[in-house]
C-alpha cells in the first residue's frame, strides 16, 4: 500500500517486536514488556495480535484470521483485509493451509503442526489482575511464584458455587513455572495448549505485553487433586455438520426459547460437512 511499509509497521519496529518474541520464547509464560505502537484499529480489537502478525509475516505466508472460531466474523474480516491490503499476502480460511493463524477467543479444532504459528489476541495478559489490580505488585508475585491467591480464588468458587466458576480464560501454569492467561478462550480449549507442536504467541497491545508458549511445552490448567480441571461444552451435536465433540455456538432462533447449536470453528464445520457428504 502506498505510503506504508510491507505489513504496515516499519522494519525497526518489527525488529523490536521480534526481540521481545525471542525473549518470550526463552522464558515460557513470562510477560515481556514491549513498546506497543498505535495501530489503525482500536485498542482491544487485536492490536497486540496484529503487531505480532505484522512482525512475523513474510510475502510467502498464508494468513488465516479467526474471531470466536469463525473466519466470517466482522473483526476477523477486518483484520484479514488489513493484511491483504498492507502486505498483499495470501489469506485462507483453511486451518491446514495457513502458515500463520491469528485468533481471538478460540483455538482451531484440528491439531496445529510444527510449521505453523498461532497468534492470540490478548485483552488482559495479567492472570492475577482480578485479584491484584496493581501491576507493580502482581509482577512481584510472578517473580516469587506467589500464586496462592489464585488457588484460594478457585477454592472460594467451589465453596460458594460448588464448582470452579471460571468458564473462559482459565489460568494455566506454563513449563511448571509461570502462571499465564491463555487469553479468553473457553476452558474447553485449554487442553490444546499443552505440548502443542506449533509456536504459540500472545500479544496484548494496550497492556504492552508479549508472551509465548514454545512448541511441545507443558501447559497445565490450574485445579485441585480432588477437583480436577473439568471444562464443559454445550451438550449437543452441531446442527450443521453433526460433529459431536466440537465447541458450539448457541444461536437464538425465535423469541419462544428456540435455540440452535453449531460449531464455532467454521472451517472445521465446513470440512466436516464435506467429509460426511
Amino acid at each position, binding site marked *: 500500500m502506498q505510503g506504508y511499509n510491507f505489513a504496515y509497521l516499519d522494519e525497526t519496529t518489527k525488529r523490536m517486536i521480534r526481540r521481545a518474541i525471542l525473549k518470550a520464547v526463552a522464558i515460557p509464560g513470562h510477560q515481556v514488556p514491549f513498546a506497543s505502537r498505535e495501530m489503525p484499529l482500536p485498542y482491544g480489537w487485536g492490536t497486540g495480535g496484529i503487531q505480532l502478525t505484522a512482525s512475523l509475516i513474510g510475502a510467502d505466508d498464508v494468513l488465516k484470521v479467526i474471531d470466536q472460531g*469463525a473466519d466470517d466474523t466482522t473483526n476477523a*474480516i477486518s483484520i484479514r483485509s488489513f493484511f491483504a*491490503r498492507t502486505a498483499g499476502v495470501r489469506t485462507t480460511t483453511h486451518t491446514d493451509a495457513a502458515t500463520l493463524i491469528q485468533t481471538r477467543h478460540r483455538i482451531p479444532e484440528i491439531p496445529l503442526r510444527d510449521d505453523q504459528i498461532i497468534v492470540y489476541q490478548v485483552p488482559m495478559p495479567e492472570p492475577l489482575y482480578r485479584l491484584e*489490580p496493581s501491576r507493580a505488585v502482581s509482577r512481584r508475585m510472578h517473580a516469587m511464584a506467589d500464586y496462592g491467591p489464585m488457588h484460594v480464588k478457585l477454592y472460594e468458587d467451589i465453596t*460458594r*458455587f*460448588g464448582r470452579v466458576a471460571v468458564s473462559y480464560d482459565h489460568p494455566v501454569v506454563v513449563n511448571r513455572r509461570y502462571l499465564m492467561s491463555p487469553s479468553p478462550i473457553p476452558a474447553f480449549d485449554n487442553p490444546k495448549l499443552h505440548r502443542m507442536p506449533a509456536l504459540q504467541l500472545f500479544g496484548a497491545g494496550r497492556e504492552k505485553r508479549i508472551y509465548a508458549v514454545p512448541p511441545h511445552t507443558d501447559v497445565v490448567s490450574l485445579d485441585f487433586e480432588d477437583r480436577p480441571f473439568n471444562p464443559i461444552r454445550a451438550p449437543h451435536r452441531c446442527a450443521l455438520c453433526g460433529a459431536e465433540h466440537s465447541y458450539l455456538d448457541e444461536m*437464538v432462533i425465535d423469541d419462544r426459547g428456540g435455540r440452535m447449536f453449531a460449531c464455532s470453528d467454521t472451517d472445521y464445520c465446513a470440512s466436516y460437512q464435506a467429509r460426511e457428504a
Partner: protein
Amino acid sequence: MAYVAVKGGEAAIAAAHAWLARVRRGDTRLSAIAAAQIVAQLGRAVDRVMAEGALYDPQLAAMAILQAQGDLIEAAFLVRAYRTTLPRLIDSDPVDTAAMRTQRRISAIFKDLPGGQRLGPTTDYTHRLLEFDISAVAAIKPDAPKADPDPAIAATLPRATDLLGAESLIEGEVPSLNEPIDLTMSPLAFPASRDERLQALARGDEGFLLALGYSTQRGYGHTHPFVGELRMGAVGLRITPPELGFAIDIGDIILTECQMVNQFAGSKTTPPQFTRGYGLSFGHADRRAMSMALVDRAMRAEELGEDVSAPAQNVEFVLSHCDNIEATGFVEHLKLPHHVDFQSELETIRAMRREAQATKGAAPDEADNAGL
C-alpha cells in the same frame, strides 16, 4: 495588562469579548459555518452536547457548538443554562426501546438472534487511516444504505437480555412503581437510588465515565461484562395529557441503549444469575452508553454483596464528580481573583517562618531566597 486593574475591569471584559468574537469567527475570507451543517456533518459532537447538556435539540446543540468554538463541555454548559429556563409542562411516558426503529443492533453474546445483527452507520470496522483525498470522502455512493431501516427490522425486536430472562438466567428487571426522582428538581442525596444514579450518569462526562468503566475492566472493581445488546435508533416519545387521558405521540428521538450482561451473583443456596448494567444516551453514542452501563453495574456492588473497594464502586465518589458542568466550573474558578485569601496566607506563612527561625536560629540561605 493586569486582569484586575483598579478600575479597568469593565473595559477589560469588553475588550476580551470583542477579541473572542473575532477569534470565534476566524478568517473572514472563509465562509462561516451554519448550525445546520454542524447538525448534518458533526452528528457525534451534537449527540454528546445533547447528552451532557441534558436537552434533546440538535439545532440548539449545534448553535452551542458554534458559539463555544467546538469546545463541547462549554457547549453543553450553554445548553444546560438554557434548558434550566424552560417551563416543565409535563413528564413523558417511559420510552419503549423494544419498539425502537433500529439503525444499529448488535449482540456480543449470541452469534445470531431473532432480528439479526445489524451494524448500522458504525466506525467499528474502519481502518483508522487518514483520508487525505477529501473528495473521496465527499463522494457518497448513491447505493449507500439509507438511514431508514427496512420494514422487517423496524418491527419490534426482542432484547437479547429478554431472551436470557425467559430462562431466568439473568436477574429480572422489576418495574418501579414509584415516581422516579428528578435530579433537576431535587438535589443529589446519598445513599442514591438507582434511578438517581442513572440520571446522573446519563448527563455525566463521557471521558469520566469512560475512564471509570475502563478501570473496572482492568481489575479495579471487576464485573465480567458482556455486551448483551447495543441498539441505536429512533424511539417515539409519548405524553399523556391529563385532560385527554390517552397517550399522544409528540415526535421521535434517537437513542443508544446498552444492556450489559455481567457475571453472576449467587451462592450455594440461591442459583446464580447474570446481573445487569444499563446505559442509555441521547443520539448515537456507543462509548457513552457502554461506559455508563459498566459504571452502573460497578455501583451495584454493595447491593449484590460484593466488596466495595474500587473508585467506580464508590457511589458518592462517582456521582459527585461525574457532572462536567460542575467540575469545569469549579476547576476553572481557580482563575478568578483569590488575592484576599492569598494575602492572609502570605501573612500567615511569613509569621510561621519568623517563628521557626526565631526558635531554631536563622537558616539564612533559604529565608533570603524565598522571595516572600
